[in-house]
């Protein structure tokens, strides 16, 4: 019994939150990786694009709720997601047309593009704060939990509860669907193949008659979709605040680099590596030892490797370690 209790504890505090946060990071990292592999720059504005997508979902959710259109027990955000995605994509394409395109035509260095993306980040951040304000926004409605701790305890008779929030379930399911769709597109369709060809060897792709503008357009469509879904899911799960998305950029970059920049599979793996190491390193192991060891052997103290305050710093630490030991990441990505 103690053994099962221990497993439940791990599932409740590490596995489920890790899977949720990991999928959010993975979706974000996919966006960054795709921009990097096709357009060849690190897009610092990606966090703000996510924030922009989440903002669209929030405004539309409020509108739909006030009109009485809801999807109880699921949050309304699910219905409005397609519209929010279209809005985010349009914003990305507008930014590309007016800003990024100029530097692409000039063949600017990737650093210049990076600084340009910081300009876009400032602009978008300002726009978002101007539209919805800097405060906390809650747009979750519907049923809060799929599985409550108490129900779980009653059913199984265990000491430890297992909770599964609706947002966690939605995050995991939507991410899996989106990733399958993305890989199907990249590997099976002609457009996806042309995109990969363009990213592998630009000159050769141009010679074989691939239209670069179309590739760029599709890149932004994919990025916009990923950004909007990732932003909305993160906002649903952890409550939306424009400020947090700026801080999310770094864990996302870490995920992309840890997995290997420019490699979609790597981005997903990287997201989960970051999320799980954050949880594993800051978890207080006392209770687990309590279940797994005889009572006399349980050590004193919380048994944390690092205090929870350092949670986000861990992703940077992993980033630095990976850059030191293996700059190409887990799956061999491109060297920037």
């Amino acid at each position, binding site marked *: 019994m103690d053994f099962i209790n221990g497993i439940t504890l791990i599932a409740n505090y590490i596995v489920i939150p890790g899977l949720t946060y990991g999928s959010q990071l993975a979706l974000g990292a996919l966006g960054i990786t795709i921009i990097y592999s096709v357009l060849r*720059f*690190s897009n610092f504005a990606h966090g703000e694009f996510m924030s922009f997508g989440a903002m669209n979902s929030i405004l539309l959710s409020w509108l739909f709720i006030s009109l009485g259109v809801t999807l109880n027990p699921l949050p309304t955000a699910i219905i409005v997601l397609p519209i929010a995605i279209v809005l985010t994509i349009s914003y990305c394409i507008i930014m590309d047309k007016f*800003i990024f395109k*100029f530097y692409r035509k000039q063949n600017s*260095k*990737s*650093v*210049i593009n*990076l*600084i*340009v993306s*910081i*300009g*876009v*980040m*400032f*602009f*978008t*951040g*300002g*726009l978002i*704060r*101007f*539209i*919805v*304000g*800097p405060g906390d926004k809650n747009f979750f409605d519907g049923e809060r939990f799929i599985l409550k701790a108490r129900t779980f305890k009653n059913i199984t008779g265990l000491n430890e509860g297992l909770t599964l929030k609706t947002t966690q379930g939605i995050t995991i399911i939507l991410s899996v669907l989106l990733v399958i769709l993305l890989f199907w597109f990249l590997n099976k369709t002609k457009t996806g193949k042309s995109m990969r060809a363009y990213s592998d060897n630009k000159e050769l792709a141009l010679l074989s008659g691939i239209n670069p503008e179309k590739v760029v357009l599709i890149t932004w469509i994919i990025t916009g979709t990923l950004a909007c879904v990732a932003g909305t899911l993160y906002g649903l799960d952890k409550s939306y605040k424009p400020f947090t998305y*700026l801080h999310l950029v*770094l864990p996302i*970059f*870490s995920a992309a*680099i840890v997995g290997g920049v420019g490699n979609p599979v790597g981005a997903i793996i990287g997201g989960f590596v970051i999320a799980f190491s954050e949880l594993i390193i800051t978890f207080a192991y006392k209770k687990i030892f309590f279940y797994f060891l005889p009572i006399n052997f349980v050590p004193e*103290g919380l048994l944390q490797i690092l*205090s929870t*305050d*350092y949670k*986000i*710093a861990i*992703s*940077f*630490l992993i*980033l*630095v370690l990976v*850059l*030191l*030991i293996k*700059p190409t990441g887990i799956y061999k990505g491109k*060297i*920037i």
Partner: protein
Amino acid sequence: MTNASRIKFLYILMTITLLLVGFFQSWNVALTIFNLCLISSIMTLGINIQWGNAGIVNFGVMGFAALGGLANIIISMPPTQNAWKVGGEIIIIGLLVFTLSVIFSILLFKKSNLNNKIKYLISFAFIVSGYFVMRLLVDAPIEKIEAIEPAKTGYLGGFNLPVLLSWPVGGLLAAFSAFIIGKISLGLRSDYLAIATLGISEIIIYFLKNEDWLSRGVKNVNGLPRPVPYEIELQSKEWVLKVSDYLDMPITELSSIIVKLSYSILFCVVLLIVLFLLEIAVKSPWGRMMRAIRDNEVSANAMGKNIKQRHLQVFIIGSAIVGLAGAMLTTLDGQFTPVSYQPLRYTFLIWIMVIVGGSGNNFGSIIGGFLIWFFWVQSEPLGLWFISQITTHISDAIIIKSHLLENAAHIRLMFMGMILLITLRFAPKGLIPEVKR
């Protein structure tokens, strides 16, 4: 326009603008802006020597500035006697143990002939065991120290030395950490380097936020000593009273103006020294070598220049300047607040200053620092004015108007983004371009 006339024009313009603020808003506001402009331009100079002359992308401005701020605590605060009694030394010893384990594993990694996998394993084991030994030593004393009057002290304190000393020490502290960071990350290409330095600077901030025994963390250290007299002291001085009578200005206002002016003088002196040294450096053979490396690493390497060493050198120099400015900023604030270090305000804003001012030109960096800081401060009222102008015809009852007015202050982020984008598009070399030599 030639560079010289551009410099004259922009500097005069900036002076007039600040004077106008003085006449129309208040001299206090003008001097506050001026002081922060001075600090910003010193930081900008530090980044400019790295980016403009050596092509290194350093996004760690925030971390170095915070380390400079930390120097204020270490140098100028009085030591907490009890904290040293309950085990301040043990903390130092613990940190030393960890540092030694890291140094040892690096040495082992570099010097030994074992195969790679075993090397990684042994180094890793050394660092991890060093960490746990440190935790064993340090955990108990930290708890005791943080329990000593947590509302007032609860940290080790400093050396109770004059606060002005913390400026060079802040520079040294930043230089030392730049040495380590540079060793770690300078081998990386530009984009990676940007992300790595940004990440490391975040780690520094997290450290300062959470290690209460060192910096009181989020409880902040207030009441740092000042290098200039306090307003209250000034108000009882004879000559201040006379001047206040003569100028017909309330004594409270005059005293705070005098304080700010003395800060301005101190900052101006530092800025001029830094500028003078940097100008010499840039014009010297060393400066030419840096630019040669920036423009073509391969051929500079072929000419026998040690690129890694030179990059590390310029990274340390630039970061030290940022640390110096960070120490000055904390002295000006009179308190150390780790929470206030945000990448948007420190790292990215400073970068906008460098790009807008003109990368590779020290005079450009200074004017960039002045202009952007001025806009950063003034665009809040400007945005409010702008919004209230366009919404005058909308009746107050409509929610949109109040909503717009409420959020008008955030227009400044949009302003900054637009300034950066417009500069990059239409004047990629900045307001005062690099001198062709």
